[in-house]
């Protein structure tokens, strides 16, 4: 079972209270009814006709469809032949969808099932296969649509778990396991960690010495000296030794603090650096499919804020939490040893205080959720109105927007003040609680100090009081321990989620390097679907010889961009094969192969940096003279030299300081310098004016010379010079030929599209 399938199963088990797969006994029964034919696809219809939650199953076989409903302990199965299906209809609702499978007209539906959106993807798969089958029948091919290399359980689990997997690709595991994995990153720095922990232990231990010394000094030096029981000279000597010892203790403590802070801060930084490097390197290796699932902001946060939070935890959290436990234990032991009666007063309430702090943390997190929700309403106004300020002004809505913002701002301020009211009440009360313990100690100690009851030496009492002042710190740390660990494990989860994602496109063990790449591209019955079932490309075959310019045309959503994505091996085919110079693309060294591919996209992406750096992006060491030649060929040299800093002009984030046409020409210069054998032009001139388009066309003509080119364009006039045109519709190559050849086909799609565009012009 693959990792993804295991994850999907975990998601269904943990988050979705529904069967993990079609019940085995039902599957056997359906297959028995079908005389041994296998269940190829199935879905759960979780609503009954009166819209209550239920369990019914729709299963699809090579020749049959079965609908199974529970009838007491038994299953009631209704099966019919796929060839009797005339139409399949889906009526979507707010949360209830209806799938109707229809037979001959005016006859009752063969099946009518209802289901929630949770099941919708599984039903879309069934609907797709049924409609494809009907299409095959209508085309007279007779073949029923087969699901390429899929097992029904996997398709079902994938379709149900996918929305959750896309939001959270790791099922929250046990905190201890996550912590163990996180702490594993400390291994390379064992020496620094040992030293840091050692220094922290020294701090904790030596902190216990000064109060003890104070007690000893009072009971064994000051009071005996005052009472005349100790010679003054000797008392002076002992007192100075004690003071010197105290000075040494503080010196040692601060030296240890210096070592601890420095080592742990640096160590935390190293671990955060290692995590960032590993994360970024892994992100670079991930397939495009991953990036289409994850929001950019979320990935950036994982590399920046989450690793930073982990630094904080590793540098201070780990040590603080463990040493606070040691310190509390140490303090408790010392207090009980000094005087067990008073010691009990101080130690017994400690667990209660830890619990109270924990509860406060829980309560305040509810307040934070509420404040966070209201804060998002404030940021909603900002992200609406600042980019849309022209609309606001055009409709004269400034005052309304000011009022909307003011209202929400007021609302969020009230929430934050509620949080402040909570913690500003809690902490003084908590400290008051600790003071109450101290007062109680006094209440019990004073009579004993005055000679009533068991004797209590003054020095012991002073030591005791000094120790009590040290209680609050570790209680606070331990009370917040759950929150600290929670925050760290959440960040660790987010980081590990990315690290555990496997790239979908991977090289074989000994990949082939084509040197040189000639540029022959062959598609052999290529099928492809982004989700494995619904096919975006359906049996596309063609052979493009080196140096050909192929125009890809056809309606939007037909599969043109998918074809170029497959040529660049951003995804692997689901069926069939793509060959480059006769070698299966999956056997190639992907990195080496991609260096032979150039891309000019509709919205050219420029990085923050100079024009020079952007043109040299693929070849950072290219000589300046070559950069100029590339820019001249791209019709970019003129406008670049007009810029104040020429090629050294910083173009800003995404190159937004340049116009669309200028960015496009810089991206063409980048492609020319890169000198690829296979070039992909995806709507390269669609978003510019006519004059700019002319300049870009000239640049492109220079760029395409001598290369294999795949150009996608909606403006068909731009593809007149193509060697051949491929018309792609609904994932199929429906026409191919030269511009002139295709125009001669009176009923052809290309001719229809071309005439339509002429009319619009």
């Amino acid at each position: 079972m693959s990792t993804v399938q295991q994850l999907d199963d975990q998601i269904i088990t943990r988050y979705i209270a529904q069967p993990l797969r079609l019940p085995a006994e039902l599957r056997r029964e359906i297959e028995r009814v079908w005389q041994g034919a296998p269940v190829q696809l199935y879905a759960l219809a979780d609503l009954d006709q009166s819209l209550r939650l239920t369990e019914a199953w729709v299963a699809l076989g090579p020749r049959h469809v079965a609908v199974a409903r529970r009838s007491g302990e038994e299953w009631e199965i209704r099966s019919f032949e796929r060839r009797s299906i005339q139409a399949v209809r889906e009526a979507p609702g707010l949360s209830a969808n209806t799938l109707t499978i229809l037979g001959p007209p005016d006859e009752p539906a063969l099946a009518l099932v209802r289901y929630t959106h949770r099941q919708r993807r599984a039903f879309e798969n069934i609907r797709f296969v049924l409609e494809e089958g009907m299409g095959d029948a209508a085309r007279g091919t007779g073949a029923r649509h087969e699901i390429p290399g899929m097992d029904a359980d996997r398709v079902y689990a994938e379709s149900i778990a996918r929305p959750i997997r896309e939001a959270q690709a790791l099922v929250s595991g046990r905190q201890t396991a996550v912590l163990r994995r996180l702490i594993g990153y400390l291994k390379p720095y064992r020496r620094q960690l040992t030293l840091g922990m050692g220094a922290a232990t020294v701090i904790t231990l030596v902190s216990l010495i000064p109060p003890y010394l104070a007690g000893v000094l009072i009971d064994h030096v000051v009071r005996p000296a005052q009472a005349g029981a100790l010679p003054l000279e000797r008392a002076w000597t002992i007192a100075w030794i004690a003071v010197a010892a105290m000075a040494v203790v503080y010196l040692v403590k601060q030296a240890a603090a210096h070592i601890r802070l420095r080592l742990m801060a640096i160590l935390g930084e190293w671990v955060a650096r290692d995590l960032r490097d590993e994360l970024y390197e892994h992100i670079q290796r991930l397939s495009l499919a991953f990036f289409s699932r994850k929001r950019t902001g979320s990935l950036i946060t994982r590399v920046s804020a989450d690793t930073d939070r982990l630094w904080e935890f590793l540098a201070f959290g780990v040590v603080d939490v463990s040493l606070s436990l040691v310190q509390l234990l140490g303090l408790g032991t010392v207090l009980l040893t000094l005087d067990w009666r008073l010691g009990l007063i101080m130690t017994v309430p400690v667990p209660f205080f830890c619990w109270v702090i924990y509860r406060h943390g829980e309560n305040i997190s509810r307040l934070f959720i509420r404040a966070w929700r209201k804060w998002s309403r404030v940021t909603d106004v900002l992200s609406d109105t600042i980019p849309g300020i022209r609309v606001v002004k055009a409709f004269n809505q400034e005052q309304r927007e000011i009022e909307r913002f003011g209202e929400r701002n007021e609302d969020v301020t009230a929430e934050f003040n509620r949080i402040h009211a909570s913690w500003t009440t809690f902490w003084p009360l908590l400290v008051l609680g600790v003071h109450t313990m101290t007062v109680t100690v006094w209440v019990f100690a004073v009579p004993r100090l005055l000679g009533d009851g068991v004797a209590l030496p003054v020095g012991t009492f002073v030591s005791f009081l000094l120790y009590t002042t040290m209680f609050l710190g570790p209680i606070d740390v331990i009370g917040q321990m759950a929150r600290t660990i929670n925050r760290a494990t959440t960040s660790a989860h987010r980081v590990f989620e990315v690290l555990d994602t496997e790239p979908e496109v991977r090289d074989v063990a000994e990949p082939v390097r084509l040197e040189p790449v000639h540029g022959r591209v062959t598609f052999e019955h290529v099928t492809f679907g982004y989700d494995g079932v619904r096919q975006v490309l359906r049996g596309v075959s063609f052979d493009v010889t080196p140096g050909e310019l192929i125009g890809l045309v056809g309606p939007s959503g037909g599969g043109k961009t998918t074809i170029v994505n497959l040529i660049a091996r951003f995804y692997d085919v689901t069926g069939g094969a793509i060959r480059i110079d006769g070698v299966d693309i999956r056997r190639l060294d992907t990195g080496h192969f991609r260096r032979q591919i150039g891309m000019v996209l509709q919205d050219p992406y420029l990085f923050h940096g100079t024009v020079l750096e952007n043109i040299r992006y693929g070849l950072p060491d290219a000589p300046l003279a070559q950069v100029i030649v590339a820019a001249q060929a791209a019709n970019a040299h003129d406008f670049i030299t007009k810029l104040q800093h020429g090629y050294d002009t910083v173009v800003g984030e995404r190159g937004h300081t340049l116009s669309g046409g200028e960015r496009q020409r810089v991206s063409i210069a980048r492609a020319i310098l890169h000198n690829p054998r296979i070039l992909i032009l995806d709507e390269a001139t669609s978003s510019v004016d006519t004059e700019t388009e002319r300049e870009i066309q000239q640049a492109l003509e220079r760029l395409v010379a001598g290369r294999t080119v795949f150009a996608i364009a909606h403006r068909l006039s731009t593809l007149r010079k193509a060697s051949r045109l491929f018309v792609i519709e609904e994932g199929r190559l429906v026409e191919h030929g030269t511009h002139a050849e295709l125009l001669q086909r009176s009923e052809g799609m290309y001719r229809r599209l071309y005439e339509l565009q002429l009319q619009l012009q």
Partner: protein
Amino acid sequence: MTLTFGKSATATRAELTLEWRADGSLWAVRGEEERPVSVRRCFPWTEPARHLSLRDADEEEFAFVKDPVDLDARSRAALERALAVAGFVFEVTSVLEIEEEVEIRRWQVETRQGPRTFQTRLDDWPRGLPHGGLLIRDLAGDLYHLSQPEHLDKQSRELLWAFVD
């Protein structure tokens, strides 16, 4: 001011009839034309009972019902049955648990349709509705309606406190 644009026909008693047929679909008949249709509310929360778009299998608007009272009684009954399915959302009767995980919030609720567990993104907040109540959309797109959160049991109200104004 009255704006009238577009070509779709507004229903009147004379021209549009609706009926459920044996194939399990709602059929709209207008003169010579007839099609199986599904119903879309234009304002599912602001004015759910009026302004209804009847759409065919290609998602084209076949007819527009401004107010069901314009239809004959049989058509109105047929339309109401279709509306019950099209407007179905889970009605939450109590909230049992709300837990936060790494990227998602996990909800365990009782609904009129039965017990249900669902998940939302952490930054996806319940939405207040124009006539009161809350609407929660889960990761799969299913909707959960809390018509009167203030009248739920004490535990539900406490759990929902952070999400209700």
